[in-house]
Each structure stands twice: as C-alpha cells, then as structure tokens.
C-alpha cells in the first residue's frame, strides 16, 4: 500500500508540472517577431523636410569658408578651404554632400518603406539616394550586431545597422518590468566614403561613425505628424567633438509631389 501511495505521489508531481512545461514549450516554439512586426510607430510614408533652421546653409549653397556651427578642427578647416565644386563634378563626385551624415539635412522629400521585414528603406528626392537600415538578423528583432554586406566597400550611404530603442527594466528587488521598444529607431552607420557635411566642402572622413535617432511625433492638434531625426556625427579626423543636428519632416498624404533630383556639387 505504501508503494502505491508513493507511485501515486510521483504521478501527481508529473501531472502537476505538465501545464508549466507546456507553457515553456509554447514560448519556445513561437517564432521571433520581426522588427517590422514590433515597430512602435509607423515610420513609413512620404515626408517633407521643413527648413526652419540653418536656412542659409541648406537652401542655398553656402559661401566657401562659411563653417559656422560646425565643430571643425584645424585639419577640417584646411580641407574645407580646398573645396572646389568643379573638381568634384569632373571627378564624378558630385554626390559628396548627399552621404548619410548629410543627406537628412538636405531639403527635400523622403520616402520610407519596409524593403523586407528586417530592412527599412529611405529614398531621398535630393540626390536620388537610397539608404538601407538593416536590423541585425542574427541577434533577434532588436539586435544591433552588424549584418554582413556582400561587398564591404565604402559608399555614400555606408552600412547602417538599425535597432529599436529599448526601455529599461528597472533594478533592485522584485524588478520585473520587461524591456520593450520605446518609440525610437536607432541607426548606426559606418563604412562611409568621405564626403561633405555641407555643400561648401565641410568634410567628414571614412572614419566617421554616424548615430541617428528617428522619432515619430503626433498627431498634433491640427493633424500634423512629424518625423524628427537626431543626427550625431563623430569624426576624429575633422571634428573637435560630436556634431549634433536634428532635422524635422512633416508627413505627406501621398507621393504626388515626389520629384527626385540629381546630385549637384554646388
């Protein structure tokens, strides 16, 4: 009888743990959600830049030597002073001021789409550029591990690794808040071909690391929806410190006004 009771107790234990095991199994079997599926805001659509800042450096070509606001070091200044737009045109490098560290600051519309479930694509009117913001494919939907490019060369738009910003989890006893996407898209771009932060030859080097934060805001009381891009350029070769700008775009209902424009050196 005693052995029967013991067997019965073992059976109880096995049966009791089945639902918990099943729960774990269910979680383990769920495929990870794609970055597109967990996007905290809708970044897609047509957006137009609204140029209420730095007008004279963006809407017209700045004068040679007009480097105000940029924390250029001496080497950066010397390099900027050699700016020659005709030379750039002749060399086929008229897109130098349309690279990733600068292109979000160039007036124009942008078109944001999901190229795949793990890649956001930005097309620009200005310079007809395409940026591909790739989420790390092998570190989960919010991973930041760089993906491998088939051709690991320097380009105007470089290699951009995207991730959703995560909220903190808190600390101390009973901490139990899971991390979650908090609204911002973070993009880190490297492998950049040397270019210009401004059209008048303010340089950035291939050593540049570009960090961007994309935030969708609104709708405001009048229905406006804004995209704000905070841009942080780090270039130990030409800058004294980090170079901060933030650019704002207003959402458009459609692409009716879309009018791509080729790169211009001046």
């Amino acid at each position: 009888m005693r052995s029967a009771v013991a067997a019965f107790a073992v059976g109880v234990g096995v049966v009791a743990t089945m639902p918990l095991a099943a729960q774990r199994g269910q979680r383990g079997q769920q495929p990870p959600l794609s970055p597109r599926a967990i996007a905290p805001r809708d970044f897609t659509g047509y957006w137009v830049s609204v140029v209420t800042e730095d007008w004279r450096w963006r809407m017209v070509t700045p004068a040679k030597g007009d480097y105000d606001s940029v924390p250029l070091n001496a080497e950066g200044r010397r390099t900027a002073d050699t700016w020659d737009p005709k030379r750039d045109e002749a060399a086929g490098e008229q897109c130098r001021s349309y690279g990733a560290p600068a292109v979000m600051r160039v007036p124009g519309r942008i078109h944001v789409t999901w190229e795949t479930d793990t890649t956001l694509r930005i097309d620009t009117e200005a310079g007809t550029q395409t940026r591909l913001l790739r989420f790390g494919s092998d570190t989960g939907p919010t991973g930041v591990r760089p993906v491998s490019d088939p051709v690991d060369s320097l380009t105007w738009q470089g290699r951009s690794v995207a991730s959703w910003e995560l909220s903190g989890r808190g600390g101390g006893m009973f901490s139990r808040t899971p991390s979650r996407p908090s609204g911002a898209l973070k993009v880190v771009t490297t492998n950049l071909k040397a270019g210009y932060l401004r059209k008048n030859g303010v340089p950035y080097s291939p050593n540049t690391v570009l960090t961007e934060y994309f935030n969708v805001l609104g709708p405001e009381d009048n229905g406006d929806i804004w995209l704000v891009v905070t841009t942080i350029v780090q270039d130990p070769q030409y800058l004294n410190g980090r170079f901060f700008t933030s650019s704002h775009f207003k959402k458009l209902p459609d692409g009716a006004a879309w009018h791509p424009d080729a790169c211009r050196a001046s």
Partner: protein
Amino acid sequence: MSLTRTSLLFALAGVLTIPLLAQQTPAPAASPVQGRAAQPSQSLVEYDDDVQRAAPNGVDFTGEWAPRFHEDEPERVPGPELGDYLGIPINDAARMRAMTWEASIQTLPEWQCRPHSADYIWRGPSPLRIWKEVDPVSREVTAWHAEWLRSVDRSIYMDGRPHPSPNAPHTWAGFSTGKWEGDVLTIKTTHLKEGYVRRNGLPRSDAATLTEHWMLRGDVLTVAAIITDPVYLTEPFIRTTDYELDPHQWVPPYPCQVVEEVDRPRGVVPHSLPGTNNAVTDFANRCGLPVEATRGGAETMYPDFRAKIGAITSKCIAAQR
C-alpha cells in the same frame, strides 16, 4: 489509511489547480504610475508587490544640460541680423512689426531683465537644468522643472490638473502640463505673455500655444518645440534643438538689475515707422540672397522654394561680422 488517501486526493486536486489558477490570474491593474497623467496621485496605503521598478512610460530628464550650437549658431549666440526672417512662417502683420523694430528697445527699463519665454528659451544661449518633483508617498513624478540662465523656473505639471481660465494671468513660462507618449514627454503650454520667435523683432502673440516633445536618447536631449500663433503665424512653427548632458555644468545665478542705459525722454520707445527702415535689406544684400526670401513666410521653409529662387551661392561669411 482511508484518511491518508483522502488527504492525498485533496493534495492532488490542489496541486493540479495551481498552474491553472496561475494561467487565469488577471493582468494586474494599471499601476498608479501608468495613470499619472490622467488622474491626481493616490497614496499607496499598502505595499504592492506588483508595483513595477521601472516606469511603464517615460524616462528621467533630470540633469544639467549644455546647449550645443551646431544649428543656427550666429542667430542663437551673437544674435540674428536685422531683416533675417528666413524659413519662418510669419504673416504680414509679424513682418510689419519686425521691420519697425529697433534693437535699442532692449535698453528700456521694462526690457532689460525680460527673460526669454518658454518657447524661445530653447534656442537661447543658456545652460539648462532639469529636475523632478516627486510625491513623497506615491513617488510619482508630479512635475518637471526647467530653468535656464536667463529664465524663471518653469513648471510642467504631470498630475493631470487642468489649464486655468483663459482670463488667468499670462507669464513668461506660461502654464504647462505634460503627458507621456512612450518615452517622449509631450507638453502643452498656454498663457504665455507676448514674446518673440527670433531676437530681431519677430513677434509671437500672447494667444500662441506651444507644444513640445522632449526626447532623451543616450546623453542627448532633443526637444521639438512647435508654436501655433493665430495672430502672427500662418502655419505651426517647429524647431528642434539638441542639448548634451554635462554633469559638471553649473547654472549660475543671474541677478538682473535695471539701470538707466540711455538718457531719453520719458515714454519714448525706440522704433521705426513702417517703410522707413532701409537697414532691413542689409542682410539680403550682404549675403547675396533675394530680399523676397529674407522676408520669410511659410513658402520659404519648404524645399520647393529653391526652385523659385534658383541656384544661389551665398556670400555670407559669419567671421566677417
């Protein structure tokens, strides 16, 4: 033995029920912190194990913030030039007031210690301190405070209080309430005194309202400030400004004392009559920009305006100022 068997059967039933109960446990009620923007705070009378140790929404902006003048530095530090209204959606009334403005108005006793208003101060050349006010019982953030070198303390209430009557006094800081949208703090401000959108006479009326979005990313604070003014703007006017966390920064005291700067007859207010200030075109001429562009207006802030003015290379070099 019969008693033992009965006990085991009860135990079996109990053990089998535990996981089911765990599955059916309802989601905990929204924590007090989650509802803080919508309702006044309530004391936590009993300790609640379900209170989360990370804010369900929002981040902590507390700190010393250093402005980075990597945008519009000539306008923000030395100050804008007369007649530079580029990229601002002003109407004719604002333009007329700006073109009759004289910088020497700043010497009037009434203007000498006038702080920047809540909307402009983000673009001013001042360090910023942000701190939070916390309910000692619930530990909810009930208000944020922001203070710049040349400003008064600005409170942003998070406890869900309503804005006052339209007839309530208007102040430099206005009346601000905030709410979380994810990790973005969205602030609505009313009751502003008349101010300016640029320090060269471009006015902003006391009927204007301000919407701000504070975004903290790493050690960088980006603030989008959107002004809506039915008196002087034809469209909302947005600016985005960046600050960098600087724990070594100190916002010093700024005791402002009114003195007699200019000996002038009582009641005289420096100004130009409409159409008489020819200096307002000096900026356009010096920089080689069309006067039409420097007059501002909503059209000038959109990319298609470049097609209207054509390809232009500016002649401006700030170092010559």
